[in-house]
C-alpha cells in the first residue's frame, strides 16, 4: 500500500455515500465562500466546506455592532444571515468556489417560511453541490430560522418539504436552544433527513456596563467558541445514541484533540467554526496534526472511533 493510499484510509470518512478526504469542514458563516482563506493556504486540503448561509433573497443582516467578545472562550455574533441571495450565489459564488475547490461542498440554507426553504433548496438541487445543510437554528433572525428548529413538528415539516424537492442528501442543522434536542433529531430522522449537523450557536448576551446597554445591537446573539464545546459534545452524544443518522459535529472545536473527541462522541465529520475567525490557519493546522495525534492515540483509521464511547 502506498503512503498516500494509507493516508487516505487513515483520515477518509463518508457522508451519505460521499467520500471526504478527511472529516474537517469549516462551518457556515465562519468561512464565507473560501476566498479569504484561499489567499492563505490551498483549501483543497479540507474534507468539505459549508458555505455562508444562503437565503432566497439577498439580506443585509442586523444592525451593528454584531460582535461581542466572551473572554478567552468565545464570542457572540448577531450577523443575521447577511448574504447575496441564492440566485447570486448560484451565478457567482458557487462557480468561483467550484473553480478552485474539488472537495465536498455543503450548501447551507436558511429560510423564513417552509416555502423559502423549498424554493432555495430546489434551486440548489440543480447545482454542483454535494450536501444540503438546512439551517433551522439561526438564533439571529426573527420569524424564522430557529423557530423551525425548536419544535419537532416544524423541524419535521421543513425536512419533509425539502426532501420532496431534492435528490441531494439533506442534513438538518439543529439548534441547542431547545429543551430536548433528541426529540427534534428524531423528528428529522422520521421525516426523511439523511443526516444531522449540530450544534448551531447558543443564544447569549453581553452588557456594556459603562454604557448600561447590550453590546449587540440586536440585544442577543449566538455564542460560539471553545466555551460551548462540552455542551456541543454532550448533545452530539445524546443524538448519536438516539438516532442512526450520520452526524456532523459542530460547536467550539478548535484543535485536533477536539476533533477526535467529537468523533468518539458520535460525529462522522466535524465542523470548525469560530476558531477560523481568530486563527485563519486553524483548519489546515488541525488536518496536518491529525495523523500524528492518531499515531499517539493508536487510532488506525478515523472511522474506527466514530461513536466509540457508545459501544457497550
Amino acid at each position: 500500500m502506498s503512503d498516500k493510499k494509507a493516508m487516505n484510509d487513515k483520515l477518509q470518512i463518508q457522508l451519505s455515500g460521499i467520500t471526504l478526504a478527511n472529516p474537517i469542514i469549516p462551518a457556515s458563516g465562519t468561512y464565507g465562500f473560501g476566498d479569504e482563506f484561499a489567499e492563505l493556504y490551498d483549501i483543497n486540503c479540507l474534507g468539505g466546506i459549508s458555505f455562508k448561509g444562503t437565503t432566497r433573497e439577498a439580506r443585509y443582516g442586523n444592525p451593528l455592532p454584531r460582535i461581542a467578545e466572551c473572554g478567552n472562550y468565545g464570542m457572540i455574533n448577531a450577523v443575521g444571515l447577511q448574504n447575496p441571495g441564492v440566485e447570486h450565489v448560484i451565478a457567482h459564488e458557487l462557480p468561483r468556489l467550484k473553480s478552485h475547490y474539488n472537495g465536498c461542498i455543503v450548501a447551507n440554507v436558511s429560510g423564513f417560511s417552509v416555502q423559502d426553504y423549498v424554493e432555495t433548496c430546489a434551486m440548489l438541487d440543480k447545482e454542483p453541490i454535494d450536501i444540503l445543510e438546512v439551517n433551522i437554528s439561526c438564533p439571529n433572525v426573527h420569524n424564522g430560522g430557529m423557530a423551525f428548529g425548536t419544535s419537532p413538528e416544524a423541524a419535521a415539516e421543513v425536512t419533509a418539504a425539502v426532501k420532496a424537492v431534492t435528490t441531494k442528501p439533506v442534513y438538518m442543522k439543529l439548534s441547542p436552544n431547545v429543551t430536548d434536542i433528541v426529540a427534534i433529531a428524531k423528528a428529522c430522522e422520521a421525516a426523511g433527513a439523511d443526516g444531522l449537523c449540530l450544534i448551531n450557536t447558543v443564544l447569549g448576551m453581553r452588557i456594556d456596563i459603562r454604557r448600561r446597554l447590550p453590546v449587540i445591537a440586536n440585544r442577543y446573539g449566538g455564542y460560539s467558541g471553545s466555551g460551548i464545546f462540552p455542551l456541543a459534545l454532550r448533545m452530539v452524544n445524546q443524538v448519536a445514541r438516539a438516532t442512526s443518522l450520520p452526524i456532523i459535529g459542530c460547536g467550539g472545536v478548535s484543535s485536533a484533540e477536539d476533533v477526535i473527541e467529537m468523533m468518539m462522541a458520535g460525529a462522522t465529520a466535524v465542523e470548525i467554526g469560530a476558531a477560523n475567525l481568530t486563527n485563519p490557519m486553524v483548519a489546515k493546522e488541525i488536518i496536518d496534526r491529525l495523523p500524528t495525534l492518531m499515531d499517539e492515540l493508536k487510532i488506525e483509521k478515523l472511522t474506527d472511533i466514530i461513536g466509540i464511547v457508545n459501544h457497550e
Partner: protein
Amino acid sequence: MRLAGDTNEILPGQFVNIRIEGLFLRRPISVCDAQEGLLTIIYKVVGVGTESMTHLLAGQKVDMLTVLGTGYNIANAGENPLLVGGGVGVPPMYMLARQLREAGKAVRVILGFNTKDEVFYEEEFRTLGCDVTVTTVDGSHGVKGFVTNALDGQQSYYYTCGPLPMIKALLQAAGTHGEVSMEERMGCGFGACMGCTIQTTQGPKRVCKEGPVFDAAILQF
C-alpha cells in the same frame, strides 16, 4: 508600539490584527507607519484588550495578521491634498503624509483633539514638511473648535480618519471628494464573518475587507 517584522506590501490606511493572551478576538489597530521592517502603531487604552497590550514587554513576540483591508489611494491626491485626523484617527495619517511628501505633494494636515494634553505627533508631521494645523475643542492648543473650523476649501482631495461625528461634519463641510477610514467592531478582521458590514450606496461592504478606507461618495449616514 514598534514591532520588527515583514512590512512589505503594507499600505497607509491598512490595519493589523493583534492576538492578545487571554482574549478570544484579535484587536484591530491602524498602521501609523511601516517601512524597512519596522511597524509603528499608536493605540489608546479603551478596554481590556488595549489595556493588556500595555503589559507587552520589549522583545516579546506578537501574533499579528498584517496587510489587512484597503489602504488610501495615493494616486487620487492631486497636487495639494488635505489630511484630517481626529484623536486615534491621527496615526494612519502619518504614513500617508510621508508617502505623499515623498511623491512631492504639498500636504496640509489638520489634527483634531479635545484638549492640549491629548495632542500627539504634531512635530512629526512638521518634520515631514507638512503644513500642520492643530485644533482643540477647548482651545487649549492651536485653533479652538473642531477640525472643520480649520478648513479653507483649497485642497485638491482629502483623506480622513477619526470619530464618526467628525467624519459626518467633514463630509458636510468639505464634500465627498475624498477618502474616509471607517471604524467598526470586528470579529475576524479579514472578511470571513460579516461582523462589520456597513451599508453604502453600492450595497453592503465589509469595513475590514472592502474598507476600512472608502470613497467618501459611497458612504451613507
